[in-house]
């Protein structure tokens, strides 16, 4: 089996994988980083979104081997010294999650959104989250959370 090496949440990792191993499987099964979820099989729900080299990507639609040498950040890598990332904190403050299953992907997408749109209006946020499906919240509090986080992140 081929070997793949990458940096995940700041840590160098390396493992043998079947070529068909998706990045999300690599994270969940090899690294036990189970915060990245799988909610569909057609690359639409966004529960699996992680950052690869700083950009949000659906980890269910990229092979582990494609990411040789990449810098990967998952939901587990956001909090620093026990402090939640401003986006995580804003989701809590505004009740932007209910069952929590879509939340990791939603948060990772939202951070990327604020990076590309530092001062997003409601329309930009709603459209920018089209790659993430939430069944619980109706999105309203997610939108509020993203707006607040954008403000707090210095947008």
């Amino acid at each position, binding site marked *: 089996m*081929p070997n793949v090496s990458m940096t995940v949440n700041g840590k160098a990792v390396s493992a043998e994988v*079947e*070529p*068909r191993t*998706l990045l999300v499987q690599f994270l969940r099964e090899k690294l036990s980083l189970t915060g990245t979820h799988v909610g569909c*099989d*057609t*690359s*639409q729900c*966004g529960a699996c*979104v992680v950052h*690869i080299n700083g*950009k*949000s*990507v*659906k980890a*269910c*639609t*990229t*092979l582990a*081997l*494609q990411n*040789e040498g990449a810098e990967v950040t998952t939901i587990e890598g956001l909090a620093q010294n026990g402090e939640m990332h401003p986006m995580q904190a804003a989701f809590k403050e505004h009740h932007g999650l209910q069952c929590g299953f879509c939340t990791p992907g939603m948060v990772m*997408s939202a951070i*990327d*959104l604020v990076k*590309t749109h530092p001062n997003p209006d409601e329309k930009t946020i709603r459209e*920018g989250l*089209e*790659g*993430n499906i939430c069944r619980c919240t109706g999105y309203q509090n997610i939108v509020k959370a993203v707006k607040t986080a954008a403000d707090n992140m210095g947008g």
Partner: protein
Amino acid sequence: MYDFNYHRPGSVDEAVGLINEDAKLLAGGQSLLPTMKLRLAQPSDVIDLGGIPGLSDISVDGSTVTIGATATHASVAASSAVAGAIPALADLASGIGDTQVRNVGTIGGSVANADPAADYPAAVLGLGATVHTNSRTIAADDFFTGIFETALAENEILTKVSFPVPEAAAYVKFANPASRYAIVGVFVAKTSDGVRVAVTGAGGSVFRASGMEAALNANFSASALDGIAVASDDLNNDLHASAEYRAHLVSVMAKRAVQAAGG
């Protein structure tokens, strides 16, 4: 998915050498991998073009925008050079899939895959682009040959697409609310050689609406399209839209594209 041999060649030539009958080229993988995950494709070899230096370059000279095969939709959408030369192209790229798909999906993958509901084929045909491969160039009008079919030979790799800069252009998409692919997408370009209207999503493959082109050549304004419609006979008719509705939408989207292009 089924297992396969994975290759990550360092050059186009090396990639060409790896091709066999059952191999698949992976550019961004945003269409290929979902198909493989559902076990609808079983390639023996997957040849990842993502590691080939220079293949994702974007360049603009006075009259041509050239985009490398592995340039992502996000990079095209974010390119100020592209936006300056052909804003409609950057705009089209910014509306493909979702942010995460755009961060990985590539123009080469999209054009070579020739999904009948994909956006890029409308730009390629609408702008009269030239498709470059490792061995030749192919005019847009000769490139798309059917449902998921192109003029590419088995051992041929799309390397870049060059788009002539039009006088004006716009793309308007009516997206499927579920998949967000085009139910109908219309790319209208006013070029020095005349107006081109390319339609995606509506038929088995992207096609040009010649009746509309003629009308717009006479008068580049939305009202010139009054009463002009594409025939619904050959259009897709499915759960999401009847052929009749699609035909109607082609006219509406075409008018909106003409307006957006300043007509």
